[in-house]
């Protein structure tokens, strides 16, 4: 299988501190890769560099053979990469349906003038967006809430909504920043179920997560970071047995 994403010698320095230090890894098509590490290990910084939120000090990210580094944030969705946020970013004042329909933007060709004059393409686009949104809402079991304001949903449902919005346009690579944070066990299982389902359809995932049980269950490969460096990489099985990882991060009692 071909490499979908390649991270090469990615480094970020904030003043004198090296938050991310020459990280290398790759992600194959259809693979689920997790990045773990203790607090302050540089996971989020790494994540933000991959999703073009902050520029790296050196190194680069390659997606499908093309350089991703230096692109604008909005370009990523057009390449088939979507992301969610650690601290939820949903549109509180819009309905659940509208939130998800926003996710379809990449597939629509309406502009201000075709909208203003209500050209036929506009209506067609609305129907495409509505249909795609309905499919996803059905999948994540939010259809009953579709006319509710997103801001009024429970935290767990909002998390599901953000996930739905990220996957509605059928992206190839989905970056999840702590998808399980703040979820209870039932909600965590549900979310894991959606990720598995999408994996079967060929989606690739890169995610940062603290809940070890989920990581072990979902990930094909795990990358462990500590103090900005990659200290281990391997299958969940290998990582669980890696002494470096255990001493640096997991601690004895975790297993």
């Amino acid at each position, binding site marked *: 299988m071909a490499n979908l994403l390649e991270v090469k010698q990615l480094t970020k320095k904030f003043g004198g501190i090296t938050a991310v230090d020459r990280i290398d890894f790759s992600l194959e098509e259809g693979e689920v890769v997790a990045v773990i590490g203790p607090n302050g290990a540089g996971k989020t910084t790494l994540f933000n560099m991959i999703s073009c939120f902050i520029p790296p000090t050196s190194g680069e990210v390659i997606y499908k053979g093309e350089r991703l580094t230096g692109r604008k944030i909005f370009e990523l969705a057009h390449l088939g990469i979507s992301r969610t946020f650690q601290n939820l970013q949903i549109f509180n004042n819009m309905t659940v349906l509208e939130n998800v329909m*926003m996710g379809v933007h990449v597939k629509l060709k309406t502009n201000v003038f075709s909208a203003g004059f209500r050209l036929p393409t506009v209506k067609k686009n609305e129907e495409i967006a509505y249909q795609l949104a309905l499919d996803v809402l059905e999948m994540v079991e939010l259809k009953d809430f579709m006319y509710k304001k997103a801001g009024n949903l429970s935290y767990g449902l909002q998390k599901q909504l953000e996930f739905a919005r990220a996957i509605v346009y059928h992206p190839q690579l989905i970056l999840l920043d702590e998808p399980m944070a703040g979820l209870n066990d039932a909600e965590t299982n549900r979310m894991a179920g959606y990720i598995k389902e999408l994996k079967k359809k060929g989606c690739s995932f890169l995610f940062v997560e603290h809940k070890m049980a989920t990581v072990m269950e979902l990930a094909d490969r795990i990358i462990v970071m500590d103090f900005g460096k990659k200290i281990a990489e391997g299958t969940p099985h290998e990582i669980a047995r890696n002494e470096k990882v255990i001493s640096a991060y997991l601690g004895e009692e975790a297993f």
Partner: protein
Amino acid sequence: MAKLDNVLYGHLWRPFASLMVIVLLLPLFVKSSYILTVLILIGIYSLISIGLSLLLGYAGQISLGHAAFFGIGAYVSGVLTAKYAGSPWIAMVIGIVFTWLVSYVIGMAILRLKGHFLALATMAINIIFFILILGLDEFTGGASGLVGIPSLSLFQLNLGNPLYFYFFVWFIVFVIILFSMNIIRSNIGRLLRSIHDSEIATETLGVNVAKYKVIIFSLSAVYASLAGSLYAHFISFIAPPSFYITFSILLLVMVMVGGVHSIWGAVLGTAIIMFLNEWIRYIGQTYFHISGQVEIVVYGLIIILVMMFMPKGLVDILERLWKKIKSVQIKGAEKRKMTTEKGA
């Protein structure tokens, strides 16, 4: 699927038709030319407040400088027709194109700013414009203003007649409302609201947020410019004070009183503030013997009260009232149904 629009956004034609009926019938009851003038001005100012509603209520970007774009339209029309005897229609189009260019360039520069900083920057634009029209007195007439702007005429029809002009202005208002409503009722409208809620999330969904902010800023500026041209031809005399920051603030008050999240709110707010304006002037002069800018004190008070007690504006209150009436009606109907069933 035919009703997807209505499912998502509610009905468009009901409020549209209601307003149309009101506008068509009003001249039957209005006999004084003074009130007719106020109604025409409401139409003209509504054009600006509709644009501001798109910008502020939907995209969440503030502007304290729209009086400048209003002024650009008015002065381009005024100077080209009064000084150079150009065609008013061509002058109007030139005004619009010129405003689009100016606002696009300004927008690209200042729309990176947020909140208070954006408010200050737009205010600065307004001041710069004000000083420019004062200084370029060779063209604009400076502080003494520009006189002799001809009235419009359309296919032999003299729009200098206030009644004709009234219908003409409100026809344009309806076209603009329809255009704006179409934008709101599409994925572009959704996109604008999502920018308001979370810029960063909108960006990750593949939207070039900066571009859309500038486009909507320019669109609202163009509405203001169109209003300015109409204003110049209607009043036939323009002077710098009409285009100062105080007017920009007044426009914001109009939008806020009506409710920023609604085009109808913008029109309603404009009408209320305009009548209030005239009323304050009348009360002030007759009972307190004060003249001059008493209104501005009252506007300040209105802003504070609106922000405290009805931050979503009048339209929101009306909507809630309407829902309450409806739910009471439904409950009443259910009760009657139940009692009849029991009886049977």
